[in-house]
């Protein structure tokens, strides 16, 4: 990416089958625009959201993760969205300790009627993450993995050459 190109964040969005996925669907049918930076994944419920999914998305190169679900009290499975909320609050603390900015992982409630709200939240999040810059966790890991020990950096070659001179 050169300086004059705009950074386009990649955001993974987890949506629930009963509310927020339908909100995204509604945004589509109503032709409400939101940036194409988000890749939505549908789950049956936000309570299905294992923090593993978020970590895997970030470790795999996503710049941010949006978790969405039904409003409190409106979960199709009674109270699983409260579990999602508690997991999110705990995950956010862990991510902060890992040095990942809190804005990169968000929890938003959206009912099936809130296509406009969801589109606004997505737009807002894309701009916030654009301002933060890329996370690039996967390239960090790749660069560590590809380190090779050249003879110049080897301890073994250093030892053997010393033995020759001794």
């Amino acid at each position: 990416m050169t300086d004059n190109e705009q950074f386009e964040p990649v955001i993974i969005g987890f949506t629930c089958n009963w509310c927020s996925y339908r909100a995204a669907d509604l945004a589509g049918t109503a032709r409400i625009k939101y940036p194409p930076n988000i890749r939505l994944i549908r789950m049956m419920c936000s309570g299905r959201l294992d923090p593993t999914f978020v970590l895997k998305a970030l470790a795999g190169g996503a710049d941010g993760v949006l978790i969405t679900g039904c409003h409190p009290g409106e979960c199709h499975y009674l109270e699983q969205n409260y579990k999602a909320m508690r997991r999110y609050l705990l995950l956010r603390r862990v991510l902060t300790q890992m040095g990942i900015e809190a804005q990169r992982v968000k929890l938003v409630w959206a009912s099936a009627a809130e296509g406009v709200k969801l589109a606004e939240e997505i737009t807002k999040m894309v701009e916030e993450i654009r301002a933060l810059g890329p996370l690039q966790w996967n390239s960090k890991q790749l660069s560590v993995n590809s380190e090779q020990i050249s003879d110049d950096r080897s301890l073994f070659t250093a030892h053997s050459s010393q033995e020759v001179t001794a």
Partner: protein
Amino acid sequence: MSANSAKPKFAMYWAASCGGCEIAVLNIHEKILDVDANFDVVFWPVAMDAKYKDVQAMPDGAITLTLFNGGIRNNENEEMAHLLRRKSKILVAFGSCATEGCIPGLANFSSPQDIFEAAYATVSTDNPQNVRPQFRYTMPEGELRIPEFYPVLRTLDQVVKVDYYMPGCPPESHQIAAVIDLVIAALQGKAQLPPPGSTIGVGDSTVCDECKRARNEKTIKQFVRIQNLQVIDPALCLLEQGIPCNGPATRSGCGALCPLAGAQCIGCYGPAAGVVDYGARLMTAFASVIDSKDPEEVEHILDGLPDPAGQFYRFNLAGSLLRAAKPAWGK
């Protein structure tokens, strides 16, 4: 210990580790005689004199079984990992450090600068000239090199291919004895080794399944540090008492030693089978049982876990999905 005998060859090596794994191996008592009867110990720095160049001189694949403990912290560790991989038929990531990073892996929360600052410049360190280790140092006699510190500690399988994993900090001695028995039986054609990539010397469930404490529907209103409790119910699940016990995500195999002794499981046996990210599994487990629907109250309850990342990744940071915190990766 004759290198010329026809017995299969055994090696054990320590990289970034504390030496507890070696003690655990010696702690198999008279079983160590079986090791000597069935193997030639060709390389084991803690127990016998041997040089790296002796290993370099062996033909590739000459060592039948190598137990490698410790994480990859510097280039000496990494070169030995590559060397022993080449020379070994069966390479076992032995103990928590080699399998998932363990306590040395906690340095992955910090930048290398901060680690050196803590090691060489804090008030408890007597270092008036502020001496820091130099990877290279040129003297009149020639150049000296010491192992070069890497910013991120890696697990063994992040560096070379590993045949088997044996977790534990350290692995329990009865598990080590069982694995050695199995390898000997396999060498004699009396048993089959598990498929490559398997985790060995463990149970197939969680610590909770081995724990005898009574379990009920969990609802937690507060997390408490075990040292702040006056009374601990001896028969009730520790997590139900608000003590952050890592049993629900941790692999069985230890016999639930800690919870049965009244201390919470800290997770040294690593992730249970099927767990992708150990910390994430614990986040799920802990957050699910918090008894509140009010975000503010949840935050207040979570304050009872002062160091969640340390709690959830005490042994598993280097082996987790994120592997290290941002400062360790650098820019």
